[in-house]
């Protein structure tokens, strides 16, 4: 070796050497990268990185997937306009708009709509005539049938000249068939098909008169459109999102007050309710994975830091400054975060593709691509996990006394007992807040977690005490195992907490998840209503009920309702309100269906305020109850004063409460419900929903004929869609659950690993003193089984409580305690932890005592 004396170093170079030791960022980075790679190769990072990748993968899979679903929902909402953008006016629209739209490369269609009477012989019916241009609808498709209330299919065609497509109700009303002639103004037009569905027919039963659809070229011949006709002229535009947005801003500047840009409507509340719940299930699974991974990361980082204490002391001994040690640790964290996030995002992307494949039938076309922002979520998750759970133990490396190289008993000064929990709470809290945007929920999750950790901790302490007493009276391996639990003290307590948390989350998802999914399926039984009957005059209520009962149809209570428009909030006109969302504007612009009720409707739960007394005092002021979607979109609170225009009459009511509505119950529900008596005298009608078995659908034609004023809406297709959603979402949750299982394994591995070094040494000593391998293994398994039993019983209780809370507060489902949970918890805890402990530590007894003791 060419060992020549070093060049003499002037005293002034000492400070330069210090700077050198601290190093440039690049040098530190290179050093950090090299050592990270070496740690990875030596298996030091497996649990830490594995837990991180899993957490990121689970969250991004759900993030990517829900972004695709919400984009698909937006697309479906666009279908409700039959376009990306729609303008309406009471006057014909200016030609320059078409020119400008074409300049923006948008496709255009137009509709002229007005109410009129059509005739068949002497009989007449009020209809809405819709004259559409070529290209309609620009989004979504029309569906037509060959016979009234018959099976329908999608079509790309429009009525050819001289023909019309009409709704079943018109044909049933006249007793006509396809092929018959219909008098429309001055024209005799042949009915070429039954119009079953058009995308812009609205989900809120806004258009009560049935539609007669004809080509725009046939409109003039009817001579119905005269000066003063109550026509609405609509122009529809579609194109790329950016082109539509540009054109829209041009339009908003040019259009003037007489023209209204129709806001994107909401997709059906029923489907939205189910989608929302499905997303909550997915998010719950992902959050559970996140919590488990956080526990695993915390434990793995603790062990990683403990194993690096000597290296840190050695580095300092060789001249590394505290800053260098700290910077190395921070770079390593950042590199682990980057690599973990990248790998997790890739895995998450793959997993979301699998989820999308599972749910492929739910959406009419291929799902839109996922939002790139979910990848950002991955990076934020990785950083938050590491900063919250891995940073505190790594920060301690900086403070390792260099004297540790000579005296191994020199420990690390503590950083204050509050630092690690504070970091954990801050990072996890921030992440949960970012994901949930619900302060109360985040606080509840933390409260629950805090209580669980406290209970587990105290139970762990109790176990350590009892184990210390109990070991006196038992046999060899058991005594050794129990002695270990008692002697490891704090280590055993930490393991009880980790196993307990891990088992709680696993039980929550393995057992409670199934209960919740079962409840969800049960919330939509086979006989759920599939037809809505609207516009039932008060005098028709009894005859209609009798008619349906005679046909074997069960009729539930009928709900009264009137059409009304919200005109003022707290004495300010609605037009002056600053509404944050399209949805708020849609609520403000469109007519509302108002109902009234003495009692809180079924499928509704109060989230704010109080329900009014069943018998209000005579002359009491009117009160109103709002669905939470309505209150949120319009920024309304309990105590606000609302004014409605009900058929020209002003009705003032104060908001008494806000309700959470279970829209996917398929029973009549209302955004706005008034106290009894408030709408006295208003010309209201009734609505109800019924379940019609396939054979009972033949009742529809005579029903429409006998009750011509009643509108029938078939929601069977939607019902099927919601059922499918529940089934598929359950499968998707199972998919995400795989991540949670993986995370559970990570926690077990991290917890078992946390005492592995200690165990290895003890095992070597015992075997050196003559204990057989079997005795040592039995002792280790005993220790883990005892820890697993205690964790399992506590975890079962915690999972039951958390399940009940999630069911009531989050999913709005009933939940009944399942005694099986405790058997699974107890057996699973002892078995899983025992086997995990044996698997992870069998290497301990397979290594020769000599090797262990020598190293």
């Amino acid at each position, binding site marked *: 070796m060419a060992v020549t004396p070093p060049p003499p170093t002037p005293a002034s170079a000492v*400070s330069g050497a210090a700077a050198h030791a601290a190093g440039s960022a690049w040098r530190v980075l290179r050093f950090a990268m090299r050592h990270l790679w070496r740690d990875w190769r030596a298996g030091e990072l497996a649990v830490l990185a594995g837990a991180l990748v899993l957490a990121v993968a689970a969250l991004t899979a759900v993030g990517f997937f829900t972004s695709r679903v919400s984009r698909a929902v937006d697309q479906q909402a666009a279908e409700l306009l039959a376009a990306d953008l729609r303008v309406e006016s009471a006057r014909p629209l200016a030609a320059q708009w078409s020119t400008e739209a074409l300049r923006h490369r948008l496709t255009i269609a137009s509709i002229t709509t007005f109410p009129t009477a059509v005739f068949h012989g002497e009989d007449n019916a009020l209809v809405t005539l819709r004259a559409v241009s070529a290209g309609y609808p620009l989004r979504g498709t029309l569906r037509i049938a060959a016979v009234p209330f018959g099976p329908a299919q999608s079509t790309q065609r429009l009525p050819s000249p001289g023909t019309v497509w009409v709704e079943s109700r018109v044909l049933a009303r006249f007793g006509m068939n396809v092929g018959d002639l219909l008098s429309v103004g001055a024209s005799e037009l042949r009915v070429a098909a039954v119009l079953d569905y058009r995308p812009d027919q609205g989900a809120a039963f806004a258009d009560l008169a049935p539609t007669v659809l004809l080509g725009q070229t046939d409109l003039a011949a009817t001579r119905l459109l005269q000066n003063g006709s109550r026509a609405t002229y609509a122009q529809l535009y579609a194109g790329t999102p950016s082109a539509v947005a540009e054109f829209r801003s041009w339009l908003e500047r040019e259009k003037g007050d007489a023209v209204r840009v129709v806001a994107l409507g909401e997709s059906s509340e029923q489907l939205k309710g189910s989608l929302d719940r499905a997303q909550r299930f997915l998010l719950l699974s992902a959050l559970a994975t996140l919590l488990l991974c956080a526990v695993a990361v915390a434990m793995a980082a603790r062990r990683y830091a403990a194993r690096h204490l000597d290296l840190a002391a050695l580095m300092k001994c*060789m001249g590394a400054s505290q800053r260098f040690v700290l910077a190395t640790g921070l770079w390593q964290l950042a590199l682990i975060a980057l690599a973990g996030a990248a790998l997790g995002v890739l895995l998450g992307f793959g997993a979301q593709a699998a989820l999308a494949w599972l749910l492929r039938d739910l959406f009419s076309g291929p799902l839109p691509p996922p939002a790139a922002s979910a990848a950002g979520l991955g990076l934020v998750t990785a950083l938050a996990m590491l900063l919250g759970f891995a940073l505190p133990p790594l920060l301690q490396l900086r403070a390792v006394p260099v004297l540790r190289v000579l005296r191994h008993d020199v420990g690390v000064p503590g950083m204050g007992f509050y630092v690690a929990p504070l970091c954990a709470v801050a990072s996890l809290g921030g992440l949960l807040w970012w994901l949930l945007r619900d302060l109360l929920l985040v606080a509840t999750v933390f409260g629950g977690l805090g209580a669980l950790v406290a209970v587990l901790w105290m139970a762990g302490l109790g176990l350590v005490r009892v184990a210390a007493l109990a070991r006196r009276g038992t046999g060899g391996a058991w005594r050794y195992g129990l002695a270990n639990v008692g002697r490891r003290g704090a280590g055993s307590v930490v393991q009880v907490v980790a196993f307990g948390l891990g088992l709680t989350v696993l039980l929550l998802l393995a057992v409670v998840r199934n209960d919740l999914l079962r409840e969800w399926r049960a919330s939509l039984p086979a006989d759920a209503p599939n037809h809505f009957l609207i516009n039932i005059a008060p005098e028709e209520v009894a005859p209609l009920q009798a008619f349906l009962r005679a046909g074997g149809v069960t009729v539930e209570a009928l709900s009264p309702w009137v059409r009304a428009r919200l005109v003022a909030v707290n004495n300010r006109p609605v037009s002056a309100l600053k509404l944050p969302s399209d949805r708020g504007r849609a609520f403000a612009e469109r007519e509302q269906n108002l109902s009234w009720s003495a009692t809180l409707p079924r499928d509704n739960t109060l989230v704010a305020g109080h329900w009014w007394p069943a018998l209000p005092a005579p002359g009491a002021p009117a009160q109103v109850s709002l669905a939470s979607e309505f209150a949120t979109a319009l920024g309304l609170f309990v105590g606000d004063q609302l004014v409605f225009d009900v058929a020209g009459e002003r009705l003032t009511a104060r908001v008494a409460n806000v309700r959470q509505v279970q829209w996917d119950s398929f029973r009549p529900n209302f955004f706005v419900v008034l106290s009894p008596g408030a709408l006295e005298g208003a010309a209201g009608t009734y609505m109800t929903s019924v379940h019609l078995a396939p054979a009972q659908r033949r009742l529809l034609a005579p029903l429409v004929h006998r009750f011509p004023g009643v509108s029938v809406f078939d929601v069977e297709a939607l019902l099927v869609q919601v059922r499918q959603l529940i089934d598929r979402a359950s499968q998707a949750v199972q998919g995400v659950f795989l991540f949670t299982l993986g995370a559970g394994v990570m926690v077990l591995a991290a917890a078992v690993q946390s005492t592995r070094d200690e165990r290895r040494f003890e095992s070597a000593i015992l075997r050196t003193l003559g204990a057989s391998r079997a005795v040592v293994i039995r002792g280790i398994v005993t220790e883990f089984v005892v820890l697993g039993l205690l964790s399992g019983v506590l975890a079962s209780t915690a999972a039951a409580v958390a399940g009940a809370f999630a069911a009531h507060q989050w999913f709005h489902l009933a939940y009944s305690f399942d005694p099986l949970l405790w058997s699974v918890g107890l057996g699973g805890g002892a078995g899983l932890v025992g086997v995990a402990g044996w698997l992870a530590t069998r290497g301990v007894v397979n290594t020769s005592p000599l090797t262990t003791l020598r190293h």
Partner: protein
Amino acid sequence: MSEAVLEAVGLTQEVSSPEGTLTILNQVTFVIGAGETVAVVGASGAGKSTLLGLLAGLDVPTHGEVRVVGQSLSALDEDGRAALRANRVGFVFQSFHLVPALTALENVMLPLELLGRPAPRAAATEALARVGLAERTGHYPRQLSGGEQQRVALARAFVTRPQVLFADEPTGNLDAATGLRVMELLLALNREAGTTLVLVTHDRMLAARCGRILELAGGRLVADTRTAVV
């Protein structure tokens, strides 16, 4: 005597214990010149390792002062002392202190990487060849015998060409024959490099191979003897 490399002036180390203040080192003063080989001997608890820690700046004395190449350690903070060690000091420990996750080669590269020296791999490979472990560069510490591990530690200590080498019971964990071979190697490397060696040992035979012996008893320097070794 040649230029002073290490100076201990009135070194005193006290620690608090339940029984009161315990004096581990008491007014120890000496000077070590460049290239000297010095053994610090004494019974267990005499204060040998404490003295080594203070001389290397791993700890600070309660009273007194240490000067390394004229630089007072009391004037430096922890990072300043670390920087001084970085360029001038090497260590060999009783329990080797090899990093288990690093191969033999990477363990030797570690101080070079910390210093940001160019081509650390080549220098480390050469250092390992010098201690006879050219064939074991890719082995992890657990795959090496005790003697081999200490040879890796020697390569790591000399690879930065330190001015001063501190060795704390370097043969304490080895059998007599292996210990002897390791000691031979240590002294040979030391001669080649012209390094100042401070060796803590309780083995009089090993101490006798050094040029000077400092004997501690009860925390005091009770003898400072020059041997026949040059």
